[in-house]
Structure formats: C-alpha cells, structure tokens
C-alpha cells in the first residue's frame, strides 16, 4: 500500500512540475492543482497509513488514525482552492489585459543577463 501511495505521489508531482514548466498559464494552473494533490497526500501520509481504524473516538477502539496530519491537510485543501482561484483569476486577468496567456515575460522586455544590475549601479550615481 505504501508503495502505491508513494508512486502516486511521485506521479502527481512529476505531472505537476512538468505542467508548471509549460509556457501557458492554464497549464500552470493545472500543474499547481496536481502539485497540491501530491503535497496534500504527502502531508497526510506523514501520519503513516492506517486502514479501517475509526477516525472518531469510540468505545473499545484499539487504534485510531493520526488526527493531526488530517487536520492540517483539511485546511490545506481549502487553502489550495483559494490559491487556485487567485491564480486562475490572475491568468484570466492577464489574458484579458495582455491578449495572450503566456506566463513568461515577452522576449522584448527581458533583460540580457547582467545589464540590469550594471545599470542599477551606474544609474544611482552614489556608488
């Protein structure tokens, strides 16, 4: 079972990272969703896996699941929804404002390496 869950976590992570490395905002949003699944599952798994244990206090129960990671993951799930919503909104806003949904800065706005800092120094006039 541990093997299944960890391979699933790895697969979700790989998919998430690959999608985040794409150039378009929607793929990035999907990638972050994938990554949240992976991370939530991982956090949950830090309580170690237990099958068929009661999650609530009960007379005569021999063992319980670890409630702490569950509580942490529960809020994490809700927060990751909030994050997805904000990112989706930003993607949408950027698309409507800018006319395309690339996540990278347009090549024309990029600075060739090093010149920005050089400009920063000489422009100050103090150094």
């Amino acid at each position, binding site marked *: 079972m541990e093997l299944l869950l960890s*391979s699933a976590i790895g697969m979700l992570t*790989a998919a998430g990272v690959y999608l985040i490395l794409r150039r378009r905002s929607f793929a990035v949003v999907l990638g972050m969703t994938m990554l949240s699944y992976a991370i939530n599952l991982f956090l949950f798994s830090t309580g170690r896996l237990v099958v068929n244990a009661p999650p609530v206090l009960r007379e005569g129960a021999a063992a319980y699941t670890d409630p702490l990671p569950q509580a942490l993951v529960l809020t994490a799930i809700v927060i990751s929804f*909030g994050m997805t919503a904000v990112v989706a909104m930003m993607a949408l806003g950027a698309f409507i404002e800018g006319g395309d949904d690339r996540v990278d800065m347009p090549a024309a706005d990029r600075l060739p390496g090093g010149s920005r800092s050089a400009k920063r120094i000489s422009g100050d006039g103090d150094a």
Partner: protein
Amino acid sequence: MSPALIAALPFIGALLPGLLIRSGRDVAALACAAATAVALLGLGLHIPAIMAGEVITARFAWLPSLGLNVHFRIDGLALLFGILILGIGLLIIAYARHYLSRRDPAGVFYTYLMLFQGAMLGIVLSDNILLLLVFWELTSLSSFLLIGYWKHLPEGRQGARMALTVTGMGGLAMIAGMLILGNIAGSFDISDILASRDAVQASPYYLPALLLILLGAFTKSAQFPFHFWLPHAMAAPTPVSAYLHSATMVKAGLFLMARLWPVLSGTPEWFYIVATTGLVTMVLAAWIALFRDDLKSLLAFSTVSHLGLITMLLGFGTKAAAVAAVFHIINHATFKAALFMTAGIIDHEAGTRSIARLGGLRRLMPVTFVIGTIAALSMAGIPPLNGFLSKELMLEQAGQTDWQGHPGLVFAMATLGAVFSVGYSLRFVWQVFFGPAREDYPQRPHDPGFGLWFAPGVLAVLVVLIGLFPNAMAGWLVAAAASAVTGTAQHPHLALWHGVTPALIASVVALAGGAALLALNRRLLAARAAIAWPEAKALFDATTRAATCAAGFLTDRLTNGSMSRAFAALTLTVVLCGFWAFSTGGWQGAARPMLPIQPVPLVGWVLLMVATCCMVAFHRQRILALVLVGIIGLMVSVSFIYLSAPDLALTQISVEVVTVILLLLALNFLPKFTTIESRDRQRAADAFIATLAGLGFAALAYVVMRSDFAFPSISQYMLANSYRLGGGDNVVNVILVDFRGYDTFGEITVLGIAALTIFALTETLLAGTSGRRLRNWVHGSRRAGDRHPLMLVVVTRLVLPIALVVGLYIFLRGHNMPGGGFVAGLVVSVALVSQYMASGFAWAQERQKINYHALIGAGVIAAGLTGIGAWFAGLPFLSSAYGYVKLPGLEEFELASAMGFDLGVFLCVLGAVMLALNSLSRIARAAGGTTNLDPMDIDPSKEARR
C-alpha cells in the same frame, strides 16, 4: 525609577517630536530634552545604591523558551555609559536646536536622535545578550538614518550606507558569537554569563565565539582594519558626529568588551587579538589624522586612534588597565564631543572646515577659541587637563606590558602614538586659531550665540574640573564602573602628579615630538601627498560593486523573466538539496511493515496513474484536461476514504466540484487549446526535471511512511484529551476548532483575503481598457443552444433544500462525527452554485440578497468573538467550553463554544467560495452574456398557462 522605564523613556521621547513639531522646533527640542532629563534623573536616583555595590535589575519574560528575556541591570558600567549617553544627549539636543538650519526638518532629526539614544541606552542597560543584540542592531539602523540625514548629499548617503554595511556585517557576526557564548554558558543572561568564566574559557568554542564577538565590537568601534567607515560617516550633521562618533555609538564596541571582560579576558588569545588591534589602530589612525585637512575628518581619525587606545587597555587584561580604560572613556567623551561641536561652530560661522582655508580665528572667535583650545590640549594630554591623567595611566600600563618577549615594544609604540596625538592636537589649535587673520573666509567668522557654545562650554569646564579634581569629579564613577568591569571592588586614586616616572618622561617626549611634527607639518604634507596611499573607500566601493555585480549576474541568469527557467532552477535546487540531506542523514532502513495491497485500491491506483498520464499527454485540450483533473481528484478523495480519513474525503470532493466549476468559468475566456511552442529538446529537459522531482518526492514519501516517528507524536495527547478538553469525539474537528484553533483562524482569514483579492482583481478588470475589451468580446466557440435546460433547472431546485439540510447536518454533527464548518460551507456553496449554473448568474443573483463580503467578514468576526469569549472566563484566546442542553421535544444534545468558531469557519468558507465564483461570472456577464427573464429556456408551465 525602574531600569525598564529608564530604557523606555527615550523611545517615548521619540514619539514626541512628530506630535509637537507643528508647535515649533523649540517645543519639540524641549520635549526630547525633558524625556532625556527624566531618564537621567531616574538613573541618578540609583547612584547611592550602585556606589554601595548594588546592582539594580528589572526582569520581564519575553520568550523564555528561547532564553530571550527583557532583563535590565544597572551596575557601575551601565551607570557610567548611561550618564554619558543621557548627559551628552541633553547637550546635543540643545546644540542641535541652534545648529540645524531652517530648511532642515528638525522633527525628523529629533525622532532619529531619540531612537538612537534609546537603542544605545538599551545596549548598556541590557542584562540579556539577546536583548542587547536587538538594541545593537537598532543602533546600526538609527545611526544609518542619522548619518544619511541630509538626504540630498551623496556623501551622506554613501557614508550612511558604508557605516551600515560595515557595522551591520559585524553585528551579524556578533549574533553568531553571542549564540555560541550563550550556549557555552547555558544562559543568555549577562549575570549568568559573567559567572561562568571558567566554563567559557575551557570550551573549545571559546576562540570562535571570541573572534565573532570581537568582529562585532571592532566594526562598531572602528578598529583597524574596519576603521574606514567612521571618517565617511562624518558627512552627518555635526551634532550627530559629536554624539554618535565621539561619545556613544563607537563606544558600544568598547562597552561590549568591557561588559564581557570578566568572562573573555585574561587569555593569550584575548591579549594578542585585542591589545594588538588596539595598538595598531591607535598609532595608525593618529598618523593619518596628522595629514587630514577637513577638521571633522581629523577628529574622526583621532577618535579612531583613541578608541584604539581604550581597546588596547582592555586588551591588556589587567585590572589597573581596565581602570585606565574606564577613565579614558569618560575623558575622551568630554573633550571629543566638545571638539566636534567646536568644529561644527567653525563650519557654521566661517563656512568651511578645511584647515587650509582657516587660521587666525583667535581674535575673531574668542569664545570658540578658548573652548576648542582647552579640549584640544586635553586631547594632546597636556596637564592639568583630564586627557593628561588618563594618558599617563595608559603609558604606565603600556610600560608594564610585555609583547611576545619584547618588554619595551608596546611602551615605545604607545609613546609614538602619543607623539602623533600631540601633533594633530597642536595642529588643530595652531592652524585654525593662530596665525594672521585672513581676508578670504567663505563667511565673515564671529562667535556664535550662547545656544551654540553653551554645550561645548559645559564640556570644556568639565575637562578642566576633572583634570584639577579628578577624585571628586570622576573618581567615584570610575571606581563604580571599574568595579563592574573587573568584578572586584576597585578604589583607584587619580592624581596629577605621580613623581618622575617613565610615563611622565614619555609625556614630555610626546610633547616635544608633537611640537616638532607641527613645525615640520608642511614638509610632511608635501611628502605624503607624493605617495599614492591605498584609499579605503575605493576598495570598499570596488568590493561592494563586485558583490552587487555577482549577485545581479546570478539573479539575472536565474530569473530573466522566464518563469519556467526560474521554476526549473528552484526544482533542481530542492531536489539536489533533498538528495544531499538524505544521503547525509543516516536513514536506518524500513522499520514499519507494509500494508497489504488489496485489489480495489489497486484498481483506484491504476485509474489515478492512467488519468495523470493522460492529463499530461492531453493537457493541450483544456476541457479534456479539466475532466481528467476531476477524475484524479475523485481518486484522491477515494484514497482518503480508504485510508480512514472521511473528513478529508468529504472536503476534497466538495473542493473538487468548486475547483472544476471555477476553472470552467475561467476557460470561458481563455483559449480552449494550447499550441505547441517549446522545442522537443526543451520538453525533454522539462520532463527530465519533472521526473527527478517526482522520483525524489516519491522516495521521500516512501521513506517517511516506512519509518517510525523520530519524536513521539503530539497526536496522542490530542486523542487522549479531545473529549475532556474540547468536548468532541471527532478529533480532527476538535484540532481545527480548538487545539489548533489559532491556525484555523488564520487560515479562514487568508481564505477571505484570497476571495477579496479576486473581487478586487475583477473590479480592476471590469474598469478601464480591459473592461472595454470585455464588452466587445467575441466568443470564439459556438455556444450551447439550450443554455438553461429544463432538466437541470428542475433537478437543482429539488436538490437545493436537500443539500442545505445536508449542509446543516454536516455542520451540526461535525464536532463528534466526520464533518464540520469547512465541509458544510463547501456543500452549501455547491448547492448555491448549481442554481447559478442552471438558471444563469443574473437570474439567480436577483433572487438572493446575500452579500458575500459581509459573509466573509461575519465569519471572521464570529470566529474571533468566540475566541475572545474565552477571555471573559479568564482563559486564553480560543479556549473552549461545552455543556449539555435538554430542549423539550428533543434528545439531550451537546453545545460547545467551539461551535461558534465553527460557524465562523462555515460562513467564511461559504462567503469566500461564492465571492470567487461570483467574481468570475461577473466577467462573463460584462462580456455580453444576456440576462434571461425566465429560469429556464423552455418552461412547460408557461406553455400550459397560455
């Protein structure tokens, strides 16, 4: 007066100028002076007790678990420095009132000055080295503000930056040193550290701690080779130089060495590092001062030299040398502050500080001449002024010191330093005041008003009085401070005449040598100008520029505007660090047995893996990708159920629904397909990075699941106390609303903020150019013919009341069964959203009156009020209580105060989810979505009526 109050008074005073400056700068200055005077008075009231050998303390716990306590102590050393800081502070406030011109913002100046005063006083009164570090950093910051006070001057800005860089760097080193020291001593309280000398000096970490602490002290006190910042800090207004750079801040390093003297001194390491640095600094800086043309620069180097002298005395490690050091701290503060103020007066009245353009001021500015000459002669060590007394003591101590088997070396070097010192002091007097009066001063010089010469005048009187009556004027203070430094009672006898001793002969030699140097001054200047000396500022600038360039190079390479590049770098770094950490961590091997693999979970696993692969393969078809996300989310929820986490499964599945709806709403505008942009090679590289990350994370998860807990888990406590303390059987919910309620409170607040951010973004999008663009939006894809289908509308109407009851049920049972505010909020929002989906946003919006902003606010307030309610029962924030209630007609049921908190969670989640979705649909509406009048496109009831 409590030491804590004394330490707080300057900070209180710092608030006053901002409030009072509109009433004029006199009022602001008076307010600051009043705060300072009260603090000084409070300190003065403790003098009898301290003279009797008592130590006054005030203790408050701040973060006791870290050893960070607000402990203050006043002993002799703190008293001496406190009197210097507050007494000279008072004079500086008066002097600055007349020094600053009308154009200078005086309120800002006084605020900075009082901040600095408070920080400095905090250092000397702290009885905890961590607290001391806080104040230490505060002096660096406030002195940065003061040095750069004239923001329009580039020298001011550069000097401030240099001072901050050097002292800040030293401060960082000192933090490390203090932490080591505290760890050796087992306490961060100075009282405890002072008692553990043997343990500290026997520790193998003694030398690293010593070096790091000295780095902090040497940078602050401008010791060679960190002396170069002080002359550049002279770009500050003169009151700042007089205060910070003669009497107080540069002495913070000395204070620290004196404070830790009983613990750190007495070892060969201490002697050779501290005494040698002090000696080199003293001679070198005095030599440089001989050639300075700018008066303040001359004084700055002479300050460096005198600081070196005191450092050297502390470095000797003998009690007599410590007495001499303490005495010279007093004397230097008096004559040097007076000299800086004199230089300020000359600058103010004659319009220049350049020695080459001055001379002959004796007759033009007689009062200034008298004050300046007394102070300068004291600096030269001429009897009967106070500088002579401490210099004699210094020479006497130097004469008794043996350096690596060279008994006369230190004495000879100290005498040489004294020669230079006499040289520059005489030069100050001779070339500024004597000689013929000139015609070409930038301004016509004349004596300033009483306001300007009063402060240096007081100090000059002190210089003479301490010189003539050393025991009456300063002996008691020296005795108290030296007793505190050395840890044993000291009763020094200070006298002008000790008989003909080697020290006296050295003084005479110094006087003669200094006079000769003055006579040769012009030739020396010419000779020195012919040689190219290394310029510290140029070196410093080159170093900082190189560092900035390197940092800029790295930053621009990593983040050149391409997000994928930055993220790839981040991922690789994390994977490499993780791998490195794991390979050096020493994993013991799997300790827990694996759970057997059942067929049903295996099917789920296959589904999840296939869906994920498909998702990556087909992510360009965005709607399909969204469907696949739904499948993956479903599988994640199912695995939560299987692994005994029903709460998580409920949350995950309801979040899944709202996420998919949200992304669908976004897709309404975003392109439905992604074109292939990156080359195959790029995608292969990305796939490689992604695989690495996936493998790493999978391995981590596997190792964690197969290992036992490294520490006993706190979950056992929660399981054991969930019912007793929180009154609930559902431990997950009790953790959320009770044990970790504070976290949850923060989380719902964040969720609310996220929703409000989305709302604000929408508002911006709907206005301006993008709003116009939206109104002319042409939808690329064909729209559905039946936008509000009959079946959907009828089903959602039927489901709504059921869903609301389910939500209520989940909410109410949450404390004892899986459920709670989070899930209930999500379920209810799904029920509401389905109405929007069925009949259209505008139609549904007209039929409900809920303000989602208010819902979020009400949620946060409800949760907060529940938490505050605990205060009235005398319990900490968010403690919960519970009881059982019997209402007629109902079973007995439990009522916990945590339910109020959970209600807040519920409201906030509901409001946030609805506001987010609502905002996205508003964009759709702005883009020309028509408003339907009927709930559904084909309404059979209408047909029937007709």
